[in-house]
């Protein structure tokens, strides 16, 4: 993922189907190609399969059918040894945050860099920088478990971008945020994207992609709607 060949996309998904046992079809025949450096919104109703799709991309879940390639690597065939390297290059902000409640905010964010053996000084600097950007500087030493949901959400976002990964996956990153904090988070993502990072944001918060020039993809019961379908579905939803 260090080199960025312009011809191959960073993410290539071909007819991926994911079925949770026993018979929940979370994704069906999803095909998707995302070039390096794109910023993209993934939307759809609750239960449509947004989180599942992100999990396929970062290799937490595997498709039952189809192919998922990240940076040219087939995630089903990738060697166990290569998985950590790949994950270090993917920053995922989980919908349920996955923070360590008994660690401080700074430690939680720093973890993403520690696993990549970043130097402690670099980590400290980066953590402070991110906390300032997200207006959380005063929570630097607070335990993550004591934070409000909105604060935890921002910490999760900070951890996802901390190691300057090549790919950021944000699952509902503004679900618990007011409009001001939402803007901070979105500004951070935009900044990362300007530096060349590919950013995928799964959300049902229309306000953050309303006026965007970026691609907006919609999932409906596990199927990816084509651009045209999306307009139709929007029409259907109108009163």
């Amino acid at each position, binding site marked *: 993922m260090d080199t960025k060949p312009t011809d191959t996309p960073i993410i290539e998904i071909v007819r991926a189907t994911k079925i949770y046992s026993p018979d929940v079809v979370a994704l069906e025949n999803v095909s998707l190609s995302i070039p390096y450096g794109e910023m993209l919104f993934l939307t759809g109703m609750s239960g449509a399969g947004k989180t599942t799709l992100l999990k396929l991309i*970062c290799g*937490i879940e595997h498709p039952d059918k189809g192919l998922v390639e990240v940076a040219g690597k087939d995630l089903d065939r990738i060697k166990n040894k290569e*998985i*950590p*390297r*790949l*994950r*270090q*290059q*993917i920053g*995922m902000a989980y919908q349920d945050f*996955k923070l*360590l409640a008994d660690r401080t905010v700074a430690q939680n964010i720093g*973890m*993403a860099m*520690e*696993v*990549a*053996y*970043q*130097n*402690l000084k670099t980590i400290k600097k980066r953590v402070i920088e991110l906390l300032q950007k997200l207006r959380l500087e005063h929570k630097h030493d607070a335990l993550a478990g004591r934070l409000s949901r909105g604060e935890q959400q921002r910490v999760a976002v900070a*951890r996802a971008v901390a190691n300057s990964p090549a790919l950021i996956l944000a699952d509902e990153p503004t679900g618990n945020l007011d409009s001001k904090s939402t803007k901070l988070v979105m500004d951070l993502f935009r900044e990362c994207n300007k530096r060349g990072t590919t950013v995928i944001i799964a959300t049902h918060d229309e306000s953050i992609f309303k006026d965007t020039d970026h691609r907006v993809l919609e999932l409906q019961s596990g199927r990816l709607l084509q651009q045209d379908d999306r307009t139709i579905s929007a029409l259907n939803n109108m009163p």
Partner: protein
Amino acid sequence: MKFINTIVVQTGRNLQKTWPSQFMTLLTVSLSVLIFSFFFLIYTNMINTGEKLGDDLRLTIYLEEEPVLEMQAQLVKKITNFSPVEEIRFTSRQEAYDSLAKQLGENVDVLDDLDPSFLPPSIEVYPKKNLSTLAEIKKFSEYLTTLPGAIKVQYGQEWVERFNYFTKLLRAIVILSGILLIMTTTFMVAYTIRLAVLARQAELEILRLLGATNNYIRTPFLIEGFLQGVFGSSLGLLALYFLYRWIKLNFTGPGILQLVNFTFFTPAIMAIIIFASVVLCIGGSFSSMRKFMRI
């Protein structure tokens, strides 16, 4: 360097979190090392003493008659035929009497009424060191009894046998306590590492999601095992050293301990004990991780 820094921080955090169980393990390891090395120390000292006693081992053959010179030469030939010896010395009745008189010193008058020839003549045989085992000495002594004119052969049988028995017993104890050491150490370390792994389950899960390598996750636990081994065994040896000093101070009067030159382990042996403990502890930690970490 970055790797080391990160790992050290990580290990420090682990220890902070699980120090009570870590401390218990440390004590268990040192206690096992103490028990084992205590018996081992006694054993090595016994062996040393045995060797030293073996150095002045001699067999005395009591004879009916004083052998004439020709006979002496024959006896020497017969003895050396069986086994090469360091030295053979003949003692006549008169010499035996004189040496007894000398030993009695002022009380020499008890001998006044006795015939100076009441003591039998004898041959003292100093065997070469190759006669190390009790069985060999026994065989040699049995052979010596068959010499012409021999009445009796003495070499402190009872004492040698008892010593031999005791050494064997001690060897068994050393082996048993060694097994105990191996079991308690590996099991206890494996157990604490298991606790540590379980206590950090949530964290390990997240670390894996963030892209932590197996080494990143494993190394702190191995370091913990290493520290347990180093400090546990050092502590055990230190305790043994104090015990040793105390025994030396309090029991070096007349008696067996004066005869035995009681010494502590050489640095090389201590290094081996520490090294073995470290290997055991790391092994315990490793086996525990394999079971509980899906690595």
